[in-house]
């Protein structure tokens, strides 16, 4: 997209920093003098963002990575630079799936994958369905849209606390409805402990996330020219065919970004399981973020927790790169 020469960028050789790498691009247009100032401008504009990112994201990340190579337990938390180096020790324990720590981590990882795939798929499905259904204007559409978006707008702790209130076994609305009022089950099921906790987690996550998918897709749908639909209808295509042939393909670029973003956010989500289950999540809902939290903050073993986080990061990097390569998308192609 940047094949047009941007206004006033000077030769890289004049820019700040070490000179001369890469071929110099001929400028098609030279607008204003004072090239040096021009040249520094993009860097200057980037500087605040860069400083913040380095200070708040990258440097702590690097420190976290360093921590993962140390045996950092409560004895050393005060002077963690004196904690002993154990090289790959934390990592070895974390990936040894025959030992309990590694086994638990693998289990948590698989649960998180399953959860993420399920939650993102459902959120996307609901989002695209609602977006398509709400394309045409009808009475009350605005109000309905506001209602749909509200769960996403609610602060996460508000939403999840409400759900934890609803999902109580004895005093919650969900059981009241399905057991007392509808008589669907014999005994009241548990939602916050036991196997059903996975379902509870998915439901709460989807409840919060599908409006975001809805919002993005609704916006994207508006960009699809009406003429395409009209032409298709004149040709005799039914609604379902229209969706399959026009809508979905047009949404592909948006979907690619949307799914990636949802995947990353859902996989890393800490707030939902923490507020729903507290510091110890049930086995069926042991998401990796809580698992790592428990391995570091609750048991004071920061080296181990950091190692697990690094592994998580590596996994997500691999997935993201793979995904971007596969979809061939990219701001990188700019």
């Amino acid at each position, binding site marked *: 997209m940047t094949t047009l020469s941007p206004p006033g960028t000077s030769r890289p050789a004049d820019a700040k*920093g*070490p000179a001369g*790498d*890469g071929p110099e691009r001929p400028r098609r247009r030279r607008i204003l003098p004072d090239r040096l100032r021009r040249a520094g401008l993009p860097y200057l504009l980037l500087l605040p963002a860069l400083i913040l990112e*380095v*200070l708040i994201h*990258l*440097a702590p990340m*690097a*420190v976290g990575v*360093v921590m993962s190579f140390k*045996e950092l*337990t*409560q*004895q*050393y*938390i*005060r*002077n*963690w*630079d*004196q904690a002993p180096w154990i090289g790959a020790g934390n990592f070895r*324990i974390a990936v040894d799936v025959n*030992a*309990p*720590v590694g086994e*638990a981590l693998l289990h948590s990882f698989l649960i998180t994958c399953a959860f993420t795939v399920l939650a993102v798929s459902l959120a996307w499905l609901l989002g695209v369905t609602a977006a398509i259904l709400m394309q045409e204007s009808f009475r009350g559409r605005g109000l309905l849209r506001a209602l749909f978006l509200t769960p996403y707008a609610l602060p996460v702790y508000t939403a999840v606390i409400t759900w934890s209130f609803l999902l*109580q*076994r*004895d005093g919650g609305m969900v059981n009241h409805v399905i057991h007392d009022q509808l008589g669907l089950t014999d*005994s*009241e099921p*548990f939602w*916050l*402990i*036991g*196997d059903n906790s996975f379902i509870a987690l998915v439901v709460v996550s989807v409840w919060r996330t599908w409006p975001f998918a809805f919002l993005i897709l609704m916006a994207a749908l508006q960009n699809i020219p009406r003429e395409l639909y009209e032409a298709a209808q004149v040709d005799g295509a039914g609604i379902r065919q229209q969706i399959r042939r026009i809508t979905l393909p047009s949404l592909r670029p948006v979907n690619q970004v949307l799914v990636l973003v949802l995947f990353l956010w859902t996989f890393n989500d800490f707030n939902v399981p923490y507020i729903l289950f*507290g*510091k*110890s999540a*049930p*086995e069926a809902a042991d998401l990796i973020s809580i698992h790592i939290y*428990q391995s570091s*903050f*609750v*048991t*004071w*073993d920061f080296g*181990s927790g950091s190692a697990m986080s690094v592994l998580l990061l590596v996994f997500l990097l691999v997935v993201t790169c793979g995904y971007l390569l596969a979809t061939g998308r990219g701001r*990188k192609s700019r």
Partner: protein
Amino acid sequence: MRRSPARTAVTVTLAAALTAVTAACGGGSSTDGEGSNDKPKELTYWASNQGTSIADDKQKLTPELKRFEKKTGIKVKLEVIPWDSLLDRILAATSSGQGPDVLNIGNTWSSSLQATGALLPWDDEHMAKIGGAKRFTPSALAATGARDKDPAAVPIYSLAYGLYYNKKMFKDAGIDEPPATWDELVKDGKKLTGGGKYGIAVEGGDPVENSHHAFILGKQHGADFFDASGKPDFDSPGAVKAVKQYVDLLAGNKIAAPGNAEYAKRETIRDFATGKAAMLLWQAAATSIKSNGMKQSEYGVAPLPVQAPGSGEKGTRSMVAGINMAVFKNTDNIDGAMEFVKFMTSDEEQRTLNAAYGSIPPVKAAQNDEAFDTADLKVLREVLTTSSAPLPQVPDESKFETLVGTATKELFADAAAGRKVTTDSVQKELSAAQQQMRK
């Protein structure tokens, strides 16, 4: 992709530089010595949430702090921290060296925090400043850190577990006395269960509560969850029996409602206070029960049952629960901090504060006050003095609470879902928990 190696180098260098700076600074100031006296006129005090709300705590503590200020001229900045965040805040303070001067800690955290080296050890010299170790009940002092080290904190509020029972429900079921052994408890419980009501309520979803009961019962079965050298021993036969016995309240004996497996927000107290459960095993629950609407006359308190009328360690009826007060080594007002601890452990303050919170003063001299002669406190005092044991004072104690407590929670969930809880299944869970202790 045209990546500039120079640019990469710059970025990496920047990050590395910052890392190095941080690393060089280390985990904050590491004064291994005593604190300083840079700010002799002010103190920062982190109090835990002992009352019914944060506001309530502030209300109870502020007059005392004012009294202290009048006496010594030192201004105390109070912050009451909810339990959910307290340990995280202490952790952050420990690793950065920036924290309060004085703080409350759960006494079960004493060993873990002691191992960080962040707390000022109470050696004889410091103890002398507050009147000497002899002022405190031995059991409370036992829960202040590893046995072979100086205490890492001093006790200020003591609590113990008791068996709370609903007098009317007992009478209606024809039971004259609260049970003295676990067999009796189960028998009574069965009589009391029926018609939507249950014999006992347990907070099965709370790992901390679970770990406490596992410990008490473990002691009764002759098992310690850590062996003499401090290594974890979660699946010894005694430990397995203990956990199974506790879970069987819901599983095998069915005298606790299945919903109890989820309870983690004090629903047990509510169930007891509203008459849904006839018995409750809790720490100094008087204020909580009152705030749930039950009058003191309606319930009685007895010590926890034992396995068989016995004595010594096997007669353990409670773990030594309570709150300790610690001083951060990095304090900038060491003398002031000492003064403050002396003030808070003075007989008078002990009487006032413990009466306000419904706990028992660990300072012996403060115990004889009519405020502590209520029915339940009398029982709990006796338990504290004669038949309580501190949780294992090892640095990994918090891991024990988490792992064993969570294992018990899983067993409760299994039982509530209808799956059988057998000695084998209990052993498996506890073995798995123990194996996670290996670093």
